[in-house]
């Protein structure tokens, strides 16, 4: 890793060579319809995949595919080594103290549910308070709604201010009610807001609460250091960070994970099974029941390699440049209303409404020019309700996006306006 960083420093510190980077992504060559090239501005929903990730999985199936852990033949040894090797690199990527604190799941959603089913059901009782925020994704709301219905826990919410920030004063007041858990998004998938995670966690710990960070949007875009954050749990998905679908991670502090009962029962998560009882395996296997997403874990390993080679600071800097430009240009368009804070407080997300035109129609008409943006509530209905709107259009930017693509978007929006004019 150190060597790679050095190489990049020599080329151009803090700069991503985006023309070169784009070549790593075969799909960016694609024509959406004859003569119309893809302008992909939907990475917040899912990112595109570089060749190295696609090729790694392809190679696995062509060369090494076998079930892991329980086999002694060469392929089984190979696939086990690849699967566990990926875990170690993912652990390093987020600076986990050890690989066994990295639990493979399907996605961020399953990671959060794992905490809700295992840790929370073992530790929360009626009346216990869980603090969330108004900007949460449904994946960090519904698991707690379910627990509220089942267990009678209480939920309260850190409000979002008009400019899309968390109201930290109210948060401090809420903490005085001794919550058991504070679960919040590191970066909003609508507003783009990068929340002060370390500060939120420090205050939560001071109030005696455990913390869960929804890192679905931060892990792809920011340098994440779980030890520096002091996060108790940290959840993220491969598919949003150049990796395949079907694989995500729950990171947890070792003592917490060890104290938790298993979640799913089955093969691999056991140490011993009798007809009427079982003993659970040690970490990380305790939480990985059944044949895991082997090729996908290995692909995830290739994805973090790819990101680490580019350098997360460089990626963040590039995104910031594109986002700043996008916000500037979008603001100029009459009838466009942008949501979320200014560029210095947010990641590469621009959610907006266009007066009198529904976001679905905006997205559909942009698509005619090959511009892919998302329209809807982006799995954050309560946040949209807070702002009094049912839906927004959302353009999002990742390491392969350019200012020229922002210009395409802006021109497209003028077209939409004309059509509905």
């Amino acid at each position, binding site marked *: 890793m150190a060597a790679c960083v050095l190489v990049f420093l020599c080329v151009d510190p803090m700069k991503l060579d985006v023309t070169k980077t784009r070549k790593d992504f075969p799909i960016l060559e694609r024509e959406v319809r004859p003569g119309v090239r893809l302008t992909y501005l939907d990475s917040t929903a899912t990112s595109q995949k570089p060749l190295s990730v696609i090729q790694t999985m392809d190679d696995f199936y062509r060369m090494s595919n076998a079930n892991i852990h329980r086999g002694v033949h060469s392929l089984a040894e190979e696939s086990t080594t690849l699967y566990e090797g990926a875990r170690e690199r993912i652990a390093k990527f987020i600076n986990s103290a050890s690989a066994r604190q990295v639990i493979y799941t399907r996605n961020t959603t399953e990671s959060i549910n794992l905490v809700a089913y295992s840790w929370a059901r073992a530790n929360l009782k009626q009346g216990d308070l869980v603090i969330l925020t108004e900007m949460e994704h449904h994946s960090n709301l519904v698991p707690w709604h379910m627990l509220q219905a089942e267990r009678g826990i209480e939920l309260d919410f850190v409000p979002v201010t008009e400019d899309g920030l968390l109201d930290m004063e109210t948060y401090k007041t809420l903490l005085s009610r001794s919550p058991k858990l504070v679960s919040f998004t590191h970066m909003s998938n609508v507003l783009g807001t990068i929340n002060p995670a370390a500060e939120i966690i420090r205050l939560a710990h001071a109030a005696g609460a455990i913390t869960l960070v929804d890192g679905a949007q931060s892990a792809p875009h920011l340098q994440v250091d779980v030890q520096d954050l002091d996060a108790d749990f940290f959840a993220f998905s491969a598919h949003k960070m150049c990796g395949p679908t079907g694989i995500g991670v729950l990171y947890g502090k070792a003592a917490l994970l060890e104290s938790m009962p298993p979640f799913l029962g089955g093969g691999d998560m056991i140490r011993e099974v009798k007809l009427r009882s079982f003993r659970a395996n040690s970490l990380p296997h305790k939480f990985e029941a059944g044949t895991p997403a082997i090729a996908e874990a290995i692909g995830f390993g290739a994805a973090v390699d790819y990101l680490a080679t580019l350098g997360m600071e460089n990626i963040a800097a590039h995104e910031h440049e594109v986002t700043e430009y996008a916000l500037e240009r979008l603001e100029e368009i009459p009838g466009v209303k942008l949501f979320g804070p200014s560029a210095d407080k947010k990641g590469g997300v621009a959610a907006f409404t266009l007066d009198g035109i529904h*976001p*679905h129609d905006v997205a559909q*008409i942009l698509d005619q020019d090959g511009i892919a943006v998302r329209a809807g509530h982006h799995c954050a209905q309560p946040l949209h309700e807070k702002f009094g709107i049912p839906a927004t259009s959302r353009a999002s930017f990742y390491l392969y996006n350019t200012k020229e693509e922002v210009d395409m978007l802006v021109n497209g929006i003028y077209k939409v306006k004309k059509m509905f004019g």
Partner: protein
Amino acid sequence: MDDLYREVIIEHYKNPSHRGKLDPHDISFADNNPLCGDHIQIDLRVGADGVVTDARFDGHGCAISQASADLLMEFIIGKPLEEVKKLNKESVLELLGIDLGPVRLKCALLSLKVLKAGVYGLGEASDDLVE
């Protein structure tokens, strides 16, 4: 694009002829498109002979969903409920005169789902109603 946003769709979206509520009404039902949160409420008046005498929709949504709701209301007025029950995906696409992918199809069919759930007296507007 011309296909998807035919003038008639933009016209029905901008100037719907059957937007509103009916009070009193015989049937009223509302539900959401889970994909985008769009919301439609439909109110009907039904004669003793089971024929729809008036129909209105309300709510918010995209041009496709609003235009199809407006066209649907226009279409069912004067039709017996038994006939309304038989409407399906194809009926709506015919009214719109366009072809749609799986996601936009949900927009187009929201009003029919809500209509049929209301007519059948169901708790929610599920996909099977329009298959």
